[in-house]
């Protein structure tokens, strides 16, 4: 059974310096509040894993939590570039950032392999691109029946995965609906998991399109209403597009970013 915890306790217990950490949520249900708590607890040397390292990872990278990033698309969706990500890659600020870069199909399959207890996944992908030149984690594999060459990628097994969901019950069963992305796979691929939810309820009323993660497959659940802001939680909130647009200016310069971080993360409480 998942433990019900506060966000601060959940991060303190489950996210350690040097960990491989995945925060997932595909545009929808991005665990921003948990990201801020990781920054607030000043985690260091993290390997951050995420298909779409958007604003939440721009913040973690700019705050200096990350040593390495494993990803497939790093931008501010619908707005433009991630300036903190760029500054780290182009100028090693606030510290150098190693990159391991994949395609979405590759990352999704790496989580699938992790969730499946397999050491690798097979896909038709990457062929002819320059991506395999820059990592040893993309390799050819031959079909033992047809002789055809396909592509293999190793399983992702994060030390801890953090996701946001709409609801959980008191046994820690987690309910997600709307765009469910790669969250189930990311949680099941990880050694530990923390789920922040809009609310904890007595009974999970079934909802069309739901994914339910049984409580016995989750380490801890924390009630964090609005924990996806400025992303959204279908049925609870809508995306704060103004925030994403404003982030472009906030993040463009190191001093405005640091001022934002100081005011909105370090001095803020557990809830963003």
């Amino acid at each position, binding site marked *: 059974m998942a433990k019900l915890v506060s966000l601060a306790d959940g991060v303190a217990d489950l996210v350690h310096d040097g960990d491989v950490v995945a925060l997932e949520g595909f*545009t929808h249900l991005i665990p921003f509040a948990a990201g801020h708590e990781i920054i607030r607890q000043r985690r260091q040397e993290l390997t951050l894993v995420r298909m779409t390292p958007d604003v939440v990872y721009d913040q973690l990278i700019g705050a200096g939590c990350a040593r390495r990033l494993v990803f497939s698309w790093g931008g501010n969706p619908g707005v433009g570039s991630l300036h903190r990500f760029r500054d780290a890659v182009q100028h090693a600020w606030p510290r150098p950032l190693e990159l391991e870069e994949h395609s979405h199909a590759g990352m999704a399959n790496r989580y699938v392999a992790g969730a499946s207890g397999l050491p690798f996944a097979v896909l038709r992908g990457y062929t002819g691109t320059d991506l395999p030149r820059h990592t040893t984690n993309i390799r050819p594999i031959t079909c033992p029946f047809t002789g055809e060459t396909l592509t293999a990628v190793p399983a992702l097994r994060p030390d801890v995965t953090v996701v946001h969901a709409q609801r959980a019950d008191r046994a820690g069963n987690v309910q997600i609906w709307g765009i469910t992305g790669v969250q189930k796979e990311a949680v099941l691929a990880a050694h530990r998991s923390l789920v922040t939810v809009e609310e904890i309820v007595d009974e999970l009323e079934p909802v069309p399109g739901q994914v339910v993660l049984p409580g016995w497959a989750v380490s801890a659940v924390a009630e964090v209403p609005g924990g996806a802001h400025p992303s959204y939680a279908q049925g609870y909130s809508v995306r704060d597009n103004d925030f994403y647009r404003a982030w472009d200016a906030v993040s463009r310069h190191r001093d405005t970013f640091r001022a934002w971080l100081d005011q909105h993360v370090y001095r803020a409480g557990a809830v963003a």
Partner: protein
Amino acid sequence: MSERSERTIRHRGVSETNAMADWTADEMMTVAAARQLRDGVACFVGIGLPSTAANLARATHAPNLVLIYESGCLGAKPDRLPLSIGDGILADTADAVVSVPEVFNYWLQPGRIDVGFLGAAQLDRYGNINTTVVGGDYDAPKVRLPGAGGAPEIAASCGEVVVIVRQNPRTFTERVDFVTSVGYGSGPGERERLGLRGGGPRLVITDLGVLEPDPVTCELTLTRLHPGVTPEQARAATAWDLAVAERLTTGEPPTARELAVLRALEATKHGGRGEPRRPPP
């Protein structure tokens, strides 16, 4: 890349009597792209211009266009422009919402999607695309771009690819600094040698006109200009020695209806703060 065009050049339309005959180069590009989508096909849509073009097509000549978003929304029917590939309107209106692994593995990879729409930061004469790094080398690039996303496999596996990209010599480059998504590789036969099963780029639609691969050489060739654009403008906007088709045509300008629908769609693309929490459905 910004979703909104930063170009403000306006072309004078063909009909002085039509109050809507003013259009921007981006509007012409979007309309030209929308026209390429046949009704009933399944189309893998990225956010920005591809999404606008696909939704314009669905609102005009292609009501049964099947929009597939990489967030897992199959057959989305948004009544406004989605603001991201994971906009709630896509899930709310989709025939089915599936996981991200499923959209890539069960839907894109086997070749079920007819058309893939891609953008590009750099593009070469064989339609190879870079969206990863520009300048310097990979570990110390001059400009770090977002990277691959779904593009490499969209480019590999869709029945055909349509690229939508503004034309200028920095983008239309002799050699891309990084091959993020393969077009025709180094030329004829390369896709087959690589085992790519989709057809590759069929069209490149720009703010100046339309390029198509030569059936023999696979080299992108200017086949159509938007109204008011000259071949010289297109060649000047291309870093390689751009081939021009013998029978170069000029496309039709946007119709009043196309422009009206497009602008109505664009008007739905407002921002907005997150609403306060609502009770669940």
